[in-house]
């Protein structure tokens, strides 16, 4: 079920009433059944994967906590990793590894006859797999007590606001909140409602309405000039932000209304002035997951420069692969890894150079914002392109400045509209960065009424109401 579908509004209306009418275990039942209905709306068969993952991790969690035998604990953890990563590997990466193996073997002159399978990618599998993995790993590390009630644990895995596209909520954050019976709080409702409407503005108003500028050039890049491809890439940078941050905002807002705090998943990533800051602001629940469960276990920055760079690169390559089973996602991750390493190498001499030039602070900041945005934007070429060949073609056309005539920029009216919406979003983001605007706007009822009305007017005037799926559903 999509947040931007009419079915969801009906679903949530019913859920909202049942949720606040119930308490204790009955409420957990309402939450679990609703979450399964929400997921089954897409394809009921894949509920079995969630249930398998839930049962395995519940069982593993209980048994890991019960024993002090380190070998048994390790075997249990490996079981959890094997089941979760096995499901993820099969459904998401099987064909990719077959194709990659075949390509690799052909480099040595072999003609392998390897067959791929027609596998449907279960929506949200990357998200709930990482969520349940964090649970068993945290128990293994003795950072978390296991959840004894299966029903509560099943709700933790499948709770619908974050089930299919995150944020990836850690058990240590979410499970304790599931032990409380949250009562309806009018102030929380207004705060959550603001986040939900803001999320719809980002998704329906911004991302979906600029999607067509992007889709047309990325569908057949060979037909477009450098200017059209650059415009498409620029708008994609905001489309994916609007789409994913919008989803997160709706999910976090809904959870907030229901009494849960999920933390934040995006913190104005395009206001970052370094690449490492960008990753502290973009998809925070994934980047912190990768930091805590991959980068730090690999050694983090504890064993010298070269080990640190190796660990950064492994983390970013796997982060790229998490997004999709295709080489262009891996390259995207690799590029970000490379820029993080380059930044580490040059940031000090670069600072000294600017000192020597007596560069004013405002220009330094503007330059840093521009460089980070440009890197984030141009590396998106590999993220959005349908294949490596397309990505290389687009990159070549843009960087060789082949043809910068504006003629082939399609949907110019939507370009103007898109720029206006991006400017509005940036204005609100600046307010939010400075004053925590989105969270605090409801403290002043008149400001809340005006702000929500403006957002709704903009959504109705500029939004795309044809219920497009969220980009991160396929990851």
């Amino acid at each position, binding site marked *: 079920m999509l947040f931007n579908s009419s079915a969801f509004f009906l679903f949530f209306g019913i859920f909202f009433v049942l949720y606040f009418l119930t308490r204790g275990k009955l409420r957990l039942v309402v939450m679990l059944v609703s979450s399964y209905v929400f997921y089954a709306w897409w394809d009921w068969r894949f509920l079995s994967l969630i249930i398998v993952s839930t049962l395995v991790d519940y069982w593993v969690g209980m048994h890991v906590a019960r024993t002090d035998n380190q070998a048994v604990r390790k075997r249990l953890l490996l079981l959890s990793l094997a089941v979760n990563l096995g499901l993820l590997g099969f459904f998401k990466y099987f064909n990719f590894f077959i194709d990659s193996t075949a390509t690799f073997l052909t480099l040595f002159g072999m003609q392998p006859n390897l067959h791929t399978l027609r596998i449907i990618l279960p929506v949200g599998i990357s998200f709930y797999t990482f969520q349940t993995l964090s649970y068993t790993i945290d128990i293994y590390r003795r950072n978390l007590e296991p959840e004894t009630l299966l029903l509560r644990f099943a709700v933790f895995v499948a709770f619908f606001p974050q089930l299919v596209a995150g944020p990836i909520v850690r058990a240590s954050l979410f499970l304790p909140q599931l032990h409380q019976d949250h009562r309806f709080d*009018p102030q929380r*409702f207004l705060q959550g409602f603001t986040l939900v409407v803001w999320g719809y503005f980002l998704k329906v108003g911004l991302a979906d309405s600029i999607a067509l500028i992007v889709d047309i050039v990325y569908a057949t890049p060979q037909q477009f000039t450098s200017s059209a491809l650059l415009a498409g890439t620029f708008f994609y940078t905001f489309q994916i932000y609007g789409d994913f941050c919008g989803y997160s905002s709706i999910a976090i807002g809904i959870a907030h209304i229901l009494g849960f705090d999920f933390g934040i998943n995006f913190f104005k990533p395009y206001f970052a002035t370094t690449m490492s800051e960008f990753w502290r602001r973009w998809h925070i629940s994934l980047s912190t997951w990768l930091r805590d469960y991959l980068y730090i276990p690999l050694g983090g920055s504890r064993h010298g420069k070269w080990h640190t760079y190796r660990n950064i690169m492994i983390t970013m390559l796997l982060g790229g692969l998490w997004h999709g089973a295709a080489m262009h996602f891996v390259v995207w991750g690799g590029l970000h890894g490379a820029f993080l390493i380059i930044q580490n190498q040059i940031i000090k001499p670069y600072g000294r150079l600017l000192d020597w030039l007596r560069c004013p602070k405002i220009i330094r900041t503007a330059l840093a914002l521009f460089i980070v945005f440009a890197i984030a934007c141009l590396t998106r070429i590999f993220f959005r392109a349908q294949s490596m060949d397309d990505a290389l073609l687009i990159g070549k056309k843009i960087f060789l400045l082949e043809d910068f*005539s504006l*003629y082939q920029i399609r949907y110019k009216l939507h370009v*103007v509209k898109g720029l206006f919406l991006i400017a509005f979003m940036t204005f609100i983001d600046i307010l939010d960065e400075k004053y925590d605007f989105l969270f605090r706007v409801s403290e002043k*009822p008149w400001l*809340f*009424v005006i702000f929500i009305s403006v957002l709704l*007017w903009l959504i109705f005037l500029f939004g795309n*109401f044809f219920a497009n799926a969220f980009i991160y559903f396929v990851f």
Partner: protein
Amino acid sequence: MKRLIVILLVLLLVFFAGDRIISLGLHRMFYGSEFRFARLYRGGMTNEVIIMGNSRGKAYYTPYMEEKLGVSCFNLAYDAVDTKIAGILFADYLDHNAAPRLLIIEMKCLQGENKAHEGSMKVFIGSSERFSDFLRAKSFKEWVLCKMVHIYRYNSEFFLRAQIMSSRQADQSWVNSALITQAILDDISQGRRIQNPPPPRERYEELAEILRTASEHGVAVRLVLNPYLPQYVAGSTLLPYETYLRDYTGISEHVWDYRLAITDSSLFADGRHINVNGSRVLIDMQIADGFYDPVLPQKKQPLHE
């Protein structure tokens, strides 16, 4: 709790009051513009020639036509408009304006059905019963939304277009002035060809309806096929539209076929569209062929052909 209910009620009140006030402003902005469809519904025009069709029909450069023919011409063609929408526009044109003497229809609007414009047409539901019925039949949910939230009617490409056109004297000079790029020529030389599936019978029936409406109002009709870049259609089958029209609807109407009439690639904006210079050449060619005879003063003919 009482405070929350009050805030939400005030929100509803402000939202709907603002919706009505803003949509009034948007209405004035739209219908005050020089955009072709806004002028259609503003009414009171007395044009002798009108042109309908999709982007290929849009290529008729009416300032040049007026200069050459000495009569008032109005281009009602728009990107991706199909025969269903063209039929509604023509009927509404006749309701709001004086009947023209000649209607030119570029036949490529028979091709396909453009769903994007079905949504854009909602900007007219306050002015056109036909479009209101059309939208209700196509998407009841969207029609209800338009009735509830008036701002939503202006969530339309036409509204955006009107805001750009409104700063101009008229949108009638809106013809592609670009020269075909080397990239497109290369693409064509590497084998890119016209996608030309036969239009479904339904489209011909919609065209026949336009022809009947024209006939009832004494409007002469020219069915025409504009030029393609010859290399772009080389080796493709050029569809016999005239035969299809006769077979599907029983109407025998001559189709003026200029599909291969222009060979100079500098007169094209791409493989499918002539540019403004190509438009001038085509109009001259058509004048010489007697295409505009029904409106030329020296050759005034009976309105029914």
